[in-house]
């Protein structure tokens, strides 16, 4: 009993106070009250309760609900590409390639560059007539498309840039996961006469599962919350074809529709929770122990 009391005194809950004040006040409180204000027409000072009106307009107006589909497409495409490309690169860069360390650093560096800077650079490279990408394509006889101006292509172009910038994080997590696989598994497989295909699907993929799960989850959540890259590269255009939920929130905020913007935020919270928490549960169930 005295030991217990000494324990409780040493690891006092008072240590949590500064965190509780800041995190509680500046994150948890706004999150909680957002559920209420999403059901109001609101000037940040005065509010009228309007029930689910904001949510109804979010899903009935095509300029708003397009963001819902775009957000899901953007998250699936970027997370999928980061996982596949990142994993293949990680396998490559854990092989006996001599330049693997320098290549890893080069691919990782864009994750540290500001998103705005990356967006500006690629908007330029993507320019339909003068951009370096289309000029390069023209030289090998391909007429490059209008990457950011074509309504069917623009979202995918932005997604490509997002992968370019973010694949480095996936890469380093995958490399750590692959290097943690004990060497003797591979030796045993080699004795049994397994080929490279067996090695990849039978050993590397299942045993790097924890790393794979982390990246899938991180990349997917990150994709759903994306804002700055789209905002810099297209501003949601052409039309509303690249608007994401996060960019619609910003537009509604600029227009002074604070209740509607809050509803957009709540929709995003629900979307992330509805997709990410089950995904988290599903992924952790399929993990195997080393």
């Amino acid at each position: 009993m005295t030991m217990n009391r000494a324990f409780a005194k040493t690891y006092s809950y008072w240590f949590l106070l500064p965190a509780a004040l800041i995190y509680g006040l500046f994150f948890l409180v706004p999150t909680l009250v957002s559920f209420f204000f999403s059901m109001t027409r609101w000037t940040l000072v005065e509010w009228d309760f309007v029930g689910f009106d904001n949510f109804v307009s979010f899903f009935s107006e095509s300029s708003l609900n397009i963001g819902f589909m775009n957000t899901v497409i953007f998250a699936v495409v970027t997370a999928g590409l980061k996982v596949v490309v990142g994993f293949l690169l990680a396998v490559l860069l854990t092989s006996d390639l001599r330049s693997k360390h320098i290549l890893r650093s080069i691919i990782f560096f864009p994750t540290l560059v500001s998103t705005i800077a990356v967006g500006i650079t690629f908007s330029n490279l993507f320019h339909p007539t003068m951009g370096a990408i289309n000029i390069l394509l023209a030289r090998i006889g391909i007429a490059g498309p209008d990457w950011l101006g074509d309504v069917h292509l623009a979202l995918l172009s932005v997604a490509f840039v997002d992968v370019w910038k973010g694949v480095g994080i996936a890469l380093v997590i995958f490399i750590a996961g692959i290097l943690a696989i004990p060497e003797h598994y591979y030796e045993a497989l080699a004795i049994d006469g397994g080929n490279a295909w067996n090695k990849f699907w039978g050993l590397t993929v299942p045993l790097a599962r924890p790393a794979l799960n982390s990246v899938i989850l991180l990349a997917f959540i990150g994709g759903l919350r994306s804002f700055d890259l789209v905002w810099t590269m297209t501003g949601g255009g052409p039309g509303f074809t690249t608007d994401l939920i996060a960019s619609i929130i910003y537009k509604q905020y600029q227009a002074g529709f604070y209740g509607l913007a809050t509803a957009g935020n709540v929709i995003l919270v629900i979307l992330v929770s509805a997709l990410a928490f089950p995904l988290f549960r599903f992924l952790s169930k399929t993990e195997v122990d080393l």
Partner: protein
Amino acid sequence: MIRTLRRAAFEVIAVVFTLLLFVGPLLFVAFMAGKTVPEASDMAFSLPQKQQYLPNITSVVQASDFLLIRAFINSLLLTVFSIVVLMVVSAMAGFVLERRSSRFLSVVNALILVGLMIPPSVMTTIWLLQGLGVYKTLFGLVMVEVSLGFPFAVLLYRAFMVTLPRELDEASMMEGCSGWTLYFKIIFPLLKSVSATIIVLSSVNIFNDFVNPLYFLPGAKNATVQLTLFNFMTRYSTQWNLLFTNVLLLTVPPLVLFLFFNKQIVAGMVAGAVKS
């Protein structure tokens, strides 16, 4: 022999492809920043014919009354204050969260996990900051940055504290030290390496942050560097060389950090991802 050749060919392809895809865009920035206005308007991927880095840097720095310098100072202050508060707050919380378990603490843990996943609510945060009288102030933005960085930082601290033997704690309890002495004299100094990781990672994140300053610190006077860059995008739509000079200047700080702290950055990102 054929095997070696094939491997060498493969290696060359990998290197060329990486250089083209990942170094190409960065070189493009470096080239554009040294051009004259008419040359830059071509957007060509070429070396500047008559390099003008210095005049370009001078005009970007002097633009609108040294706005860029002020923005740099703002970003620097924001980054430094946020990191100091973040470290103090997260390390203290991580200490108790790792050493002790109770029903209350599992609720706390769940609330922290929520913060890792769901996006912050922007409008109600503005409303709160206004209510507290700290909207559009550096202090308000620092508080927001700390609250958003807290779940990840506390995760790293907890993961690291697992490796500190509990015998340390027991010995100091035997000596009659209080929890505070134990924490400040013994535990916190031992957290140096994970603190370094958090400092480097958060400084990149906060320095590069665009969304939070956009919402919580609007206005030209107290703009941060990312906001300035975004505003220059429309202003310099005919002077690409100056826009890219700005891009180049903002890419230097992360590049320097990367060259010196590559290991810490990678270690932190990996640890954070795998532990969660």
